[in-house]
């Protein structure tokens, strides 16, 4: 452990020296006698304690994967160094993780045993990957003249997943995929939902004959049904920029929303992929199933804004990431023109695109001056124009205020698409 003198050790030698010097100068031995207790203390302190060995510390979490806001119990296993009487153990928590009902730092006494285990409860306030630690160790010598300190890596990592909102309504895609799923396809075929009736033709299965219609018409009629199919959904995340502080920014809201949407679509046996479109391009191809769900949420945890000046369009997105007839759902604060252009390009290419807008205004302060107020009004008008351009291109947009449920926003986008009788080339 490294050592440093405490304020005592920095003050006492000067005090003693000054008193001795004064004793010599004034010829008063009393001043030397005044210095004697301080000198005894200094001598005893410097001679009494050796530098302690570096203790072994291991931090482990009861659960490595949790949902944000859940409590995680950590155990800090400390092998106590024999040279000191007490050891302060403090866990340095990363931003976004808070302590729950525990003292930090904690003091361990040598009298309690050579190996001690502390239990510390923490709570991740937001989603993310958090490396817990380092562990800060601090000890003093017997007279608190020297401070011994060390910082050791904790070695524990917790992955806090976003708390997904359970959605019952989802954006209905214009096209379904060929694979079976839970979504009623627009075309007719084998399925459960009634679609239409038509006259019997040789080759039709006998079980599809609609006997009531046949009896009324005096001829054989068969029932047509909508098949249940799945859909490919690509979540396009705008990582060019974000608004707000680290805790509670549009990025945090975006990942939470993406997680909720992905979970909901995967529950419906649809295939979901994700593309982080920003300073860097990261993606996870469309897929389904539980394993893919875990991969997807893990990929979402690594989402971050990477600032870049480089102009990028939708052409940088590999074509295989956007399957034919896929529904592209963009989540964006609509601040960056590159993302906006990419959305319009994708729509122009004939893809089915919808956008959930993350509001920026709550993260801005109130305008203080007349000019600022005017600028804010102009900015609002610009954003209105952006929304109008998207709607004009057939891209449904709805703003998701953090206080309102995502389901309401999804329903709003879906309603607009139905009203607009969206047709995709």
């Amino acid at each position, binding site marked *: 452990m490294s050592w*440093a*003198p*405490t*304020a*005592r*050790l*920095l*003050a*006492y*030698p*000067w*005090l*003693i*020296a*000054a*008193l*001795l*010097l*004064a*004793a*010599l100068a*004034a010829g*008063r*031995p*009393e*001043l*030397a*006698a*005044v*210095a*004697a*207790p*301080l*000198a*005894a*203390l200094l001598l*005893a*302190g410097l001679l009494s304690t050796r530098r302690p060995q570096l203790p072994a510390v291991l931090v482990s979490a009861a659960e490595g994967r949790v949902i944000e806001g859940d409590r995680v119990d950590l155990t800090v296993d400390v092998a106590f160094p024999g040279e000191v*009487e*007490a050891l*302060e153990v*403090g*866990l*340095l928590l990363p931003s976004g993780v808070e302590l729950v009902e525990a*003292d*930090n*730092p*904690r*003091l*361990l*006494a040598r*009298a*309690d045993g050579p190996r001690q285990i502390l239990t510390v409860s923490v709570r991740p306030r937001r989603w993310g990957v958090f490396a817990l630690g380092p562990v*800060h160790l601090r000890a003093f010598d*017997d*007279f*608190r003249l020297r*401070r011994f*300190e060390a*910082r050791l890596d904790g070695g524990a990592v917790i992955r806090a997943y976003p708390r997904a909102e359970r959605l019952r309504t989802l954006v209905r895609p214009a096209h379904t995929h060929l694979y079976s799923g839970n979504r009623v396809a627009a075309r007719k075929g084998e399925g459960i939902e009634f679609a239409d009736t038509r006259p019997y033709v040789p080759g039709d299965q006998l079980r599809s004959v609609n006997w009531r219609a046949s009896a009324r018409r005096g001829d054989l009629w068969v029932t047509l049904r909508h098949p249940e199919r799945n859909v490919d959904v690509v979540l396009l995340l705008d990582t060019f920029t974000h608004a707000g502080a680290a805790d509670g920014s549009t990025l945090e809201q975006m990942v939470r929303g993406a997680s909720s949407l992905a979970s909901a679509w995967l529950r419906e046996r649809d295939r979901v992929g994700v593309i982080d479109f920003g300073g860097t391009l990261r993606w996870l191809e469309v897929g389904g199933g539980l394993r893919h769900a875990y991969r997807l949420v893990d990929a979402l945890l690594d989402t971050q804004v990477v600032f870049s000046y480089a102009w990028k369009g939708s052409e940088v997105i590999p074509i295989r990431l956007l399957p034919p007839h896929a529904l592209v759902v963009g989540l964006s604060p609509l601040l960056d023109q590159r993302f906006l252009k990419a959305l319009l390009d994708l729509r122009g290419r004939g893809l089915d695109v919808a956008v959930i807008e993350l509001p920026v205004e709550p993260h801005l302060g109130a305008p203080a001056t007349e000019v600022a107020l005017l600028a804010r009004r102009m900015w609002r008008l610009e954003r209105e124009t952006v929304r109008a351009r998207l709607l004009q291109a057939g891209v449904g947009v709805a703003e998701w205020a953090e206080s309102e449920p995502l389901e309401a926003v999804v329903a709003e986008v879906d309603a607009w698409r139905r009203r607009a009788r969206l047709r995709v080339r």
Partner: protein
Amino acid sequence: MAPSRSTARPLSAALLAAGLAAVLAAVVLVRAAAAAEAPWLVAGAGAAGAVALLVIAAAVLTARAAAVGWGVALLAAEYAIFLVGRGAPLDAYAPLLGIGLVLVAELSFTACEWRGPHAVDSTVELRRWSRLALAAAAGGGVGGGALALAAAVPGSVAGLVIGAAGVVGLVGLAAWLRASTSGETQPAP
């Protein structure tokens, strides 16, 4: 073991430190008033004592440990002024004042530490104070012995040489400690 971090602890240590410093300053001032012939010496001692009290109170209230040394030095300066005014006979109470200064310094430093992010354990603190009292008492004993020796052999050259060597050694130690801590900070979890 249940470490506690109550806010009453630093306050009580601060009050004790300031109280003890006030008592020491007052005792020295009263003795100076009784012994000194020149009024400026009493005024000087009083001023040094008052400033010492202010510095110590400010240090413990604002948790500035670096100022504690100055407060204690001013208390010692008050005593030195008293000695100058007192004249020839040796003051047998000097070791007691030394022990008092140690207690004021330790209480003040402790009050400053307890205001920071330190965990405190009563048992550990009790042991530390026991050791500290023992060392201060031993130092007081040595100081008393030195005074007795000085009374027996006035104007000793050996004492002068030992004193000068002690000063040089301590100044060297202080300078080395200061240099060894350049850039060090006290991080707190």
